[in-house]
């Protein structure tokens, strides 16, 4: 048993209690993986019971369904609900204050991490080949 395998099994034990679409938790976008890890990390940090996260996730999915599963305006995406549940439970735990998240998001959007990195069309380094003696 590897350490990673153990950690994975521990996380998977939590995941079995969650609603999934066809049991599929696979990620399509990096933010989904990050949101996934954040929710588990916050739980490990004692911010909430896993059942609270579970309820929030179920609640978000239920509201989407009650809106008539509006595929056109809001196509089904599991991690949209995951993120909604994360925000709800963190707010419930007092870890996120109202408005704080919107403000920080605006800051992140205003400061793209790659600003100032100019495109270069030639190699930045070349280690030349040495002709065989």
């Amino acid at each position, binding site marked *: 048993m590897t350490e990673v395998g153990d*950690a994975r099994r521990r*996380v998977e034990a939590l995941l079995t209690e969650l609603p999934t679409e066809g049991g599929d938790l*696979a*990620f*399509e*976008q*990096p*933010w989904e*993986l*990050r*949101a*996934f*890890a*954040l929710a*588990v*990390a*916050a739980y490990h*940090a004692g911010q909430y*019971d896993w059942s*609270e996260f579970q*309820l*929030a996730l179920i*609640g978000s*999915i239920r509201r*989407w369904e009650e*809106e008539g599963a*509006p595929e056109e*305006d*809001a196509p089904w995406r599991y991690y*949209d609900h995951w*993120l*909604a*549940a994360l925000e*709800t*439970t*963190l707010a*419930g735990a007092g*870890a996120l204050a109202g408005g*704080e*998240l919107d403000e*920080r*998001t605006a800051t*992140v959007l205003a400061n793209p*991490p*790659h600003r*100032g*990195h*100019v*495109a*270069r069309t030639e*190699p*930045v*380094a*070349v*280690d*030349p*080949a*040495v*002709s*065989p003696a």
Partner: protein
Amino acid sequence: MTDTSTTSPLPLSLHQRSEAEIAARVKAIESIMIEKGIMTTEAIDRLAEIYETEVGPQLGAKVVAKAWSDPEFKARLVANATDACAELGIGGLQGEDMVVVEDTDTVHNVIVCTLCSCYPWPVLGLPPNWYKYPAYRSSIVRAPRRVLREDFGYDVPDTVEIRVWDSSSEMRYWVLPLRPAGTEGMDEEALAALVTRDSMIGTGPPASP
């Protein structure tokens, strides 16, 4: 305990956000949590690492295997990686301007982001942590051959030139490695299994059959 079933943001408002806004929102949550000492980057990285294989680089491997099998596709890939990947339904944020650099018998390519961590994630998934570290970012430019040998155990023959390409947000390079010997007759699926993430960064060879 709060009643979490009634306080969620409305799903509809969530769906009206762009992909970039959602990604920024997740990043914002992370930075607030770290700032408040609720969790550490290491803890989040650790959890993400366990699952990160699910976001790639199997997509890149699929592209490489197709290029190895189909010369016309390879020509299109080298000419315009973004369009060629789109043919396979692969693309997205940070993949808008991908450039594939092709390894040959005389040239080996390696990618780095000298400034931050620009990376073609639609094909390679998330960058490994070492890719983001200053140590790799500076040393691979200074002494590529030595770094590949000493840090990655990858011995590029002296008769092969090494080119290091700087991935930026406008120019996201990745490597089309050489098809390994002894793979004649293998189908794309079998070939894709040989393509490692490091072989598409240029810090390792593809696996042998």
